[in-house]
């Protein structure tokens, strides 16, 4: 068990049945009362931020959470298979846990996986990936009046809107959070 003197940024604790990570904390002490630690925490499952005044000496249950860097290998019917880059252990993670961002998860990419009580609960991709365009319509004229973009496909199968000058074989930088094209970084 922890107590309030253990509180520091990044400490992982259980609160109301969910794992939280401490984001900010501050010593507070009302006039004639006990000391408290005003603690801002982020729910590791939902991302919701919560503030609690934890009384000095209050016991805090450590959260059994761990972040591992893993490499994405391949997908099967209902899961994605990742490999621990240090132990070479493989894990199957339901596609629903990865969610829509799998469109920007090319094979062999390293991701951060959050395990809670030994179970994968969240997969974080790098914010940016660089991918080769594998399909583009060379004759696509686009609608020059409204932004001059065209859809292309990258190796993951995702469709991205890019400027008209992009062609097959170009390597482009994509923001995985928004799915947006950022820039052309070269030719493969």
């Amino acid at each position, binding site marked *: 068990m922890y107590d309030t003197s253990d509180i520091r940024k990044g400490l992982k604790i259980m609160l109301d049945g969910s794992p939280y990570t401490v984001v900010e904390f*501050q*010593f*507070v*002490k*009302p*006039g*004639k*009362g*006990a*000391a*408290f630690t*005003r603690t801002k925490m982020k729910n590791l499952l939902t991302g919701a931020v919560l503030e*609690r*005044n*934890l*009384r000095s000496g*209050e*016991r805090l249950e450590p959260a059994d959470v761990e972040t591992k860097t893993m490499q994405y290998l391949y997908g099967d019917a209902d899961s994605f298979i990742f490999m621990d880059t240090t132990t070479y252990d493989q894990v199957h993670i339901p596609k629903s846990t990865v969610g829509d961002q799998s469109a920007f998860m090319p094979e062999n990419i390293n991701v951060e996986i959050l395990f809670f009580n030994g179970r994968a609960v969240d997969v974080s991709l790098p914010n940016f990936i660089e991918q080769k365009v594998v399909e583009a319509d060379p004759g696509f004229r686009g609608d020059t009046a409204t932004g001059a973009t065209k859809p292309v496909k990258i190796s993951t199968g995702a469709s991205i809107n890019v400027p008209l000058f992009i062609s097959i074989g170009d390597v482009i930088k994509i923001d995985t959070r928004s799915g947006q094209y950022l820039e052309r970084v070269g030719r493969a």
Partner: protein
Amino acid sequence: MAASPAALEARGRIRRAVRAWFEREGFLEVETPSRVRSPGQEVHLDAVPAGDGHWLVTSPEYHLKRLMAAGFPRVVEIARCWRANESGPHHAGEFTMVEWYRANAPLETLAADCEALIAVAIRAAGRDPAALGLAAPFARTTVRDLFARHAGIDLTGGEDPTTLAQAARAAGVAIGSAAAWDDIFYQVFLDRIEPALATAGPTFVFDWPAPLAALARPKPDDPLWVERFELYAGGLELANAFGELTDPVEQRRRFESEAAVRAARGKDVYPIDERLLAALHHLPPTAGIALGFDRLVMLALGVSDIGEVLAFRDA
């Protein structure tokens, strides 16, 4: 973080202005010992050991009361105080307290003193109290009213801890493992009352419940509440005032009960100050107050971290 040159200059001007104000009001400025055998007995204050059975004072209150009992009608001390394990945006382990006492004066006189001193401090900092939303008169309310308004709890001061815990839980306050009356009270206070006070204008909070009496006397018409106020302004807890308890029997009972709680919680237990208890026999009806000088400077300068008003944040 330490004070800027401009903040230190303002602090010096505020200190001179505060001193001049007390002189105009007919106060005697005194100096009392910093190294004592009996520091504050309060359960939640821990003193810094100073060798040979001595401690650094957590507040000059005991000695100042002995001076009042000796017949001085108005005394003030700008005292350096030390408290163990206190460090945060509003707390420094070594800090400066302005503490003053008035014989034969009601608590309301001290509230008026605070309004005057805050205006003095803000003007000394070259600012305008009205422009900062700190013009007198300040709002006046009670603990009971705040609990009803912001937590929906009807505080009686006479409820047992279990009843208070139930009321707090029913109000949706997470009290954790708090079982003592004051711990439950302060959980509600921090979660619900302090955020409301932080955004309100300057406010005197009068009439504290008997379990938090400390050195205050019970209200003559309602002994479940005591004559005490706290002043909140600009998100800071600025001052605490008591209608001083002058009954040595009751004071001894409280000291012994606090010492027992300290012992039960494995804290240092300080000797009861017998000279203070003896002096209480001669203490006239007195109102006394402690105001955090560093926080007064913070308020006048509009800064949120105590480090911004201290020449040296870390000793």
